[in-house]
């Protein structure tokens, strides 16, 4: 299957030509199977969310409900406070994203243009990403407890800012490296201070990169669970943490769980599809040459 996809066009011997025609179909089979594998669970989750509760106990399972209902959605959003979770998540994610984008762009510029701190400092900043979350969240929980930041949106915002900073810096660093310095030099000679050259020339030029980094940071904050689980409870809880209320379900909460899942997925998927073009660059920036 693989050979057909990458080897060139014209074969020579009839034997080779025949071998190449079959692999062409093979990849479609693979893609088809995997797409079903991807979409089936999402479909099941969606119809579970609109099934009336009786249908859960049906054998064979109901593939499409005859009487779809939205009752689980309102239960999830209100009885289980999903709506407040969404509100908190939105506020926290947007704030943390903005902070992370700003601070991260500043740092990335310093690293990219001035090689500040040599290789070691930038490596240290980037390696923050690989710290096991449990090692950080335990002491941060204790510290927050002392300073009263537990279960506050602000506390989670700054935690998320630090959490998303390495990836933002990584992406913007690679982006700035790809932008020639000469425009900033021109601005310096034209009469700008270094800050003006950065803010009025470099940053507008880097706008696509900043947007891509912001999208990544937002999705990271929107989907994060562990930190939110530990650092929030009744007041500042985020959308992913609402799902713990459905634990140990014995049939009653299937609908609410899937309804909330559908609600959470919508912005994720929308953003993801929009960011698709930048996705590859974001994941592989600096690593792909040419």
């Amino acid at each position, binding site marked *: *299957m*693989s050979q057909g*996809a*990458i*080897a*060139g066009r*014209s*074969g020579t011997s009839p034997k080779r030509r025949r071998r190449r025609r079959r692999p062409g179909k*093979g*990849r*479609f089979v693979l*893609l088809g199977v*995997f*797409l079903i594998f*991807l979409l089936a*669970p*999402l479909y*099941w*989750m969606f119809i579970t969310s609109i099934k009336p509760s009786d249908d859960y*106990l049906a054998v064979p*399972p109901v593939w499409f409900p005859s009487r779809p209902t939205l009752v689980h959605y309102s239960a999830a959003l209100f009885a289980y406070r999903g709506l407040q979770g969404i509100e908190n998540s939105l506020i926290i994610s947007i704030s943390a994203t903005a902070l992370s984008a700003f601070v991260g762009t*500043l*740092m990335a510029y*310093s690293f990219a243009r001035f090689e500040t*701190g040599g290789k070691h400092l930038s490596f240290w900043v980037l*390696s923050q990403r*690989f*710290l*096991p*979350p*449990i*090692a950080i969240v*335990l*002491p*941060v929980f*204790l510290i927050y407890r002392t300073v009263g930041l537990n279960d506050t949106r602000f506390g989670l915002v*700054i935690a998320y*800012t*630090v959490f998303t*900073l390495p990836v933002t810096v990584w992406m913007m660093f690679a982006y700035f490296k790809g932008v020639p310095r000469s425009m900033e030099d021109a601005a310096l000679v034209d009469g700008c*201070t*270094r*800050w003006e050259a950065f803010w009025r020339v470099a940053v507008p030029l880097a706008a696509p990169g900043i947007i891509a980094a912001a999208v990544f940071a937002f999705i990271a904050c929107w989907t*994060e*669970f*562990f930190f939110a689980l530990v650092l929030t409870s009744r007041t500042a809880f985020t959308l*992913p943490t609402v*799902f*713990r209320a459905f*634990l140990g379900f014995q*049939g009653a909460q299937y609908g609410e*769980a*899937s309804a909330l*899942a559908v609600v*959470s*997925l919508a912005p994720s998927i929308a953003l993801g599809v929009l960011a698709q073009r930048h996705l590859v660059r974001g*994941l592989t920036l600096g*690593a*792909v040459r*040419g």
Partner: protein
Amino acid sequence: MSRVGEARRREAGLMAGFSTGLSLWGDRHFKWLLLAPGIGLILALSVYPLLFSLWVSFVNYDFQIPGHAFVGLKNFSQVVLDPVARWSLVLTVMLSAANVTLEFALGLSLALAMVRPFPGRSLVMSILIIPLFISPVIVGQVWALLLQRPFGPTNYLLGLLLRREVTIGWLSESPWVYFALILSDVWQWTPFMFVILLAGLTSIPPNLYEASELDGIGGWLAFRLITLPLLAPMITLAITFRLLDAIRLFDTIFIMTAGGPGTKTYTSSFYLYTVGFTQFHLSQATAGSWILLVLTAALVSFLVRRLLKAEAV
């Protein structure tokens, strides 16, 4: 000239001088000023907490008991001697290895399948990357719904396929739980591998294949001699990043199995979470998390060194 006017002019001059002086100072230290906010945040929310937790792991930190007595290595030995801790480490390694291997193999196959354009390719692309933007908790929730017993669709479909009743407890019986966890992880993260490997594949200049065809090399040989070597840096990158994320496995465990049955699906992160936040043995938990940190750091430096070497080529 009035005295007020003179004073105001002098003040303006001073202000201008001050602001110029400030601007000069700012320019001179610009690169450090840019770093200050970020470094400050990292120091406050990463370095300081880590040092604090190091202290906690050497004392007896308890909410109930006042005073924090120094207890030496007692917390560390408690972790090391705990059979659950040891099992969690083993399980983390095994699950991560299984997940990354499967995701790599599938991801590479998908990337190879998607390399050449065909109608509808961008639609397929959009669908393929959807799992990457979903919260792992939700992925766990979705698979829990799919795999549940007795009313889940999985057992029913398997029953149809195997023509007998299937009552596998995917979330409550070992070894089926492991399959469940691997399934959900592969579902979510194969696209990650896919994207990176596809980027690597598309960056290989097509004229390399054209040249090799003129030399008589095609198909499988071209894959081995051209594709794989040129893809190697991206493969290393993909595996490094995925592996370092896979060892943190927590969210899906929390939602799908809660560590069960018993403690059979305790990964290291879940184990430490339980010790710290369910049992509130905080000193033990921090000690354990420092051990995990050291192990992770060793793995990171090993992998990143290989990664940097691969890219230097």
